[in-house]
């Protein structure tokens, strides 16, 4: 125990550590703290500061208790000391006698506030001595305090009942408690106390009381069970009888202190990967996020089944609860058994190490089943009822992450969970950037082409889900439940924009890494196909152009499918921008920024310059664009650079041009592309459309004014 360890390290034997067996009235020496040598034990180093604080507080508790014993000096200060010590660490057993007596004896006069405060601060840090309770009961008999205080005392007694060290004397007082049943106010609580105290031996004659209230029924039914001959009344057989929850403020405080004790103990605690702090809220019985490791009940099972079972070996197993240090793990590695619930290994690095060493498949299976079910059950965004437990689930996910980092490998149920639940994710439960984008980017850049493509596919679906969700939910303004997640429309717009920018960024880098691979470009364009229509299709005022790192590789790429698709996308961008401009004056009254229009116009210029007007490299005003001096271009040695990216000569289109030439001039074996001009140019266009280049068609028809094909492209003016 804590106290014993301090005694060991005590340097000066002259101030011996006083055990609580000393006379309780001698308060001035009831507790002295031994000096601790910091160099002596490394273990204590961590808790050194805590202990110093403890000793300071305990030294101040002493005079406070002194005061209550003798009634001198400043009152409020001492009361505050007692309260603060109680809340932080709980009171030692020695403190209860004096405090209880003070509160119940009416020493402090009439006002109940003080006595109430005293009673409420009676939070034990270990046990409650029976003697203090006995003397408290004797004070109760004298009735020096108000009935409210008496009731509060009884409630306290019920709460700490299990912490009372002995109960024989208390049971001897059975008759006294019985006497209190007559008091109207105290009756329910006395019944509860009696219920707790009652054993078969207690035989008391029972008198009928007026009105069978639930607490009396409870007590009487217990009597009827134990000593049926004494109870002559019939009780309703099927009533559910409760004792009102009388626990009051102490229960939570006791639990907190216990938890703190565990954390501050000088005995080295195993390093937990996450806070295993049990939350105080009510849990479903079938799901627990944090499970303490406990040994398998194998010996239990063996005992009941008899020794003839060969199924279980008779080796002694090292109990898992005692496993706290790495050396212990090494020493006992052949005598270790996994805990009865595999889920508890997640917070325990030692058990995780052990898991790494074991070849037993069933270990992983058990963990995976538990993990899969827990994730499914507790997911805060898939199951509506779990919305309240977001923080807890978030902590759990964090623990999972840490465990996986520790193991240097992923756990399969996590992937499945993400696979199933990400499509349902509303996107608001967690902050995207740190939790998803950063790790995902790392993974993305270092993975294969196909993985990159599937990530892009998933992100496209995520985007679509968000957009669909907002269309369904934010339209129904009366739906108050959705707003419980604290979302606003602009919040969603920001989140979506963030996603699109993220995808733009990773696409740019990925295209460089994969040398503008066609397949990758296809998936990127799929994403932008959703993006371009956000305004018209999903009614969200957002328009984000692809970055230059995507635009130019497409424009100058070798693949007609992607080029065609991109033309379609640019056509859709135009449609959205035009529609937004027209609606500017209607009710919606939002506008896309001039930057957006500018960017669009720049891109359009480049595209039309390349594809149509044979002005590649000339008119591109985009900062990352193709604009280059003629001098520089001449140095390349390419003669006709201006036409090199139009629909005839473009690397992606030249195949079509060749086929066209062969059809239009079947006898001509030279590839005379300059023949494609004037009327033939229009035929060529028709030919391309017939080949399925619908995107190109709509792009050209919308972006290029039809007068003659040397005309400027159609800008959208803000």
């Amino acid at each position, binding site marked *: 125990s804590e106290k014993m360890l301090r005694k060991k390290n005590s340097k000066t034997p002259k101030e011996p550590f006083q055990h609580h067996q000393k006379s309780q009235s001698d308060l001035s020496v009831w507790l002295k703290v031994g000096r601790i040598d910091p160099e002596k034990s490394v273990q204590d180093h961590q808790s050194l500061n805590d202990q110093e604080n403890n000793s300071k507080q305990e030294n101040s508790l002493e005079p406070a208790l002194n005061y209550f014993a003798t009634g001198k000096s400043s009152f409020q200060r001492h009361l505050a000391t007692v309260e603060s010590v109680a809340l932080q660490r709980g009171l030692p057993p020695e403190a209860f006698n004096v405090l209880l007596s003070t509160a119940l004896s009416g020493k402090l006069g009439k006002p109940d506030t003080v006595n109430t405060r005293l009673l409420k601060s009676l939070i034990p840090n270990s046990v409650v001595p029976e003697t203090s309770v006995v003397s408290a009961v004797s004070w109760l008999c004298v009735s020096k305090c108000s009935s409210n205080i008496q009731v509060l005392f009884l409630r306290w007694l019920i709460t700490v009942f299990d912490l009372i060290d002995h109960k024989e004397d208390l049971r001897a007082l059975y008759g006294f408690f019985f006497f209190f049943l007559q008091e109207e106010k105290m009756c329910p609580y006395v019944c509860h106390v009696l219920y707790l105290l009652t054993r078969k031996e207690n035989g008391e004659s029972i008198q009928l009381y007026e009105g069978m209230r639930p607490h009396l029924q409870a007590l009487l039914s217990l009597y009827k069970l134990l000593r049926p001959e004494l109870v002559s009344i019939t009780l309703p057989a099927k009533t559910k009888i409760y004792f009102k929850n009388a626990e009051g403020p102490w229960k939570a405080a006791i639990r907190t202190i216990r938890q703190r004790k565990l954390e501050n103990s000088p005995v080295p605690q195993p390093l937990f990967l996450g806070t295993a702090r049990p939350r105080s809220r009510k849990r479903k019985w079938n*799901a627990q996020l944090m499970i303490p490791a406990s040994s398998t009940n194998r010996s239990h099972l063996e005992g009941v089944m008899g020794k003839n079972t060969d199924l279980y070996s008779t080796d002694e197993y090292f109990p898992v609860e005692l496993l706290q240090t790495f050396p212990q793990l090494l020493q006992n590695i052949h005598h270790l058994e996994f805990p009865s619930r595999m889920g508890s290994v997640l917070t325990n690095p030692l058990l995780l190490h052990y898991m790494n060493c074991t070849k037993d498949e069933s270990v992983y299976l058990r963990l995976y089943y538990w993990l899969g079910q827990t994730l499914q059950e507790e997911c805060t965004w898939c199951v509506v009822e779990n919305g309240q437990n977001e923080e807890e689930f978030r902590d759990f996910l964090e623990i999972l992450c840490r465990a996986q980092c520790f193991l240097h490998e992923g756990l399969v149920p996590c992937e499945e969970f993400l696979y199933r639940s990400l499509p349902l994710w509303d996107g608001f439960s967690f902050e995207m950037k740190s939790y998803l984008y950063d790790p995902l980017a790392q993974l993305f850049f270092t993975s294969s082409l196909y993985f990159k493509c599937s990530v892009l596919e998933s992100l496209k679906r995520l985007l679509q889900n968000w957009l669909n969700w907002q269309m369904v939910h934010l339209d129904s303004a009366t739906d108050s439940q959705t707003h419980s997640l604290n979302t606003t429309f602009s919040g969603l717009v920001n989140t979506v924009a963030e996603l699109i920018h993220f995808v733009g960024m990773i696409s740019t880098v990925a295209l460089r890494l994969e040398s503008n691979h066609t397949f990758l470009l296809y998936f990127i364009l799929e994403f932008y196909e959703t993006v371009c229509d956000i305004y018209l299709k999903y009614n969200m005022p957002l328009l984000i152009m692809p970055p230059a790192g995507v635009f130019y590789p497409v424009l100058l790429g070798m693949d007609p499918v992607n080029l065609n698709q991109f033309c379609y996308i640019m056509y859709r961008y135009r449609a959205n921008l035009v529609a937004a401009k027209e609606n500017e004056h209607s009710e919606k009254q939002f506008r896309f920024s001039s930057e957006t229009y500018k960017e669009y116009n720049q891109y359009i210029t480049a595209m039309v310059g390349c594809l149509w007007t044979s002005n590649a490299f000339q008119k591109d005003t985009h900062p990352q664009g193709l604009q280059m001096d003629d001098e520089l271009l001449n140095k390349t040695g390419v003669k006709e650079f201006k036409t090199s990216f139009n629909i005839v000569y473009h690397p992606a289109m030249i195949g079509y041009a060749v086929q066209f030439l062969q059809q239009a001039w079947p006898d001509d074996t030279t590839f005379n592309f300059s023949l494609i001009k004037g009327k033939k140019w229009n035929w060529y266009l028709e030919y391309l459309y017939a080949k399925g280049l619908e995107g190109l068609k709509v792009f050209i028809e919308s972006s290029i004014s039809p007068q003659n094909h040397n005309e400027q492209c159609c800008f959208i003016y803000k």
Partner: protein
Amino acid sequence: RNLDSETTALLLRKQWALYSVTPLYKFSSAHLKAYAKLLSAYIAAEKQKGLAVEVGVELDIKVAISSLPDLKGSDQDEAAILVQLSLRSQASQKKSEQKLVWSGWFCSVCGDDLSKNVSADFTCLPVFLANGAESYTSIVGSWFQEIFDCCFHRLAISPLSLSWMAAMWTGCKVEENASAMELVFSVPNLPQSLDISYAIHPEDAKALWNTVQKTPGEITQEEVDVFMDCLYSHFHRHFKIHLSATKLVKVSAAVASAHCDGIIKFLQSQYIIEVLMLLTELAISQIQ
């Protein structure tokens, strides 16, 4: 398979809450008596902690765990395991006066999809059905979770699965004077919740199903959809309400009744195994 009358008496006409259970680790059907002893000690300990719902009446719970060897689909399935909690009131010591207060059973009917993926250390009984107070379910379930490292998860039945059940059960042969088929729909997003109950004469339902089903013994999703659409349009003709926009929450037929919260009631002994087969499939999809 034919179930004996004792088993069917235990199962029929009771409301069972449905759970899916992950495989039990190191569970052996040879040690059921030992498990019963341990469970009974556990329950007694839990009662001491003051978790009792009913006070004073019962302090003596007797636990019986037995195997139901006929309750399975194929030979690969594990035999079902039945857990029963009875009350022995202190007043009378006679064994015949034990009152059954809670029963729960694990079973697997054609659960090969699950059992083929696990080693011999695991016992696959993915469906758990409980009848009785929730407090007992939680105690027994917690004990199983603790000892065999499994996970219980409430098994909800989606409206899609419910409509399958409606179609399937309509096609089942039942005796004369069978009860009407009833579908209950709940209407969401109303200030006061509204439940619509649609009762169909079993003969009519069967006639409709016979015209829809092409191959006897086989059911496709399209057939189920057509069947339901017919029912919906009939309702719409009379009441101008589109049932397809509501949520199907309960299906009752002569064979069995099922609720979307995961509650089932068996009404005909010869179809218990079939219903369990469907439930096993649902449970396995929730586990994997």
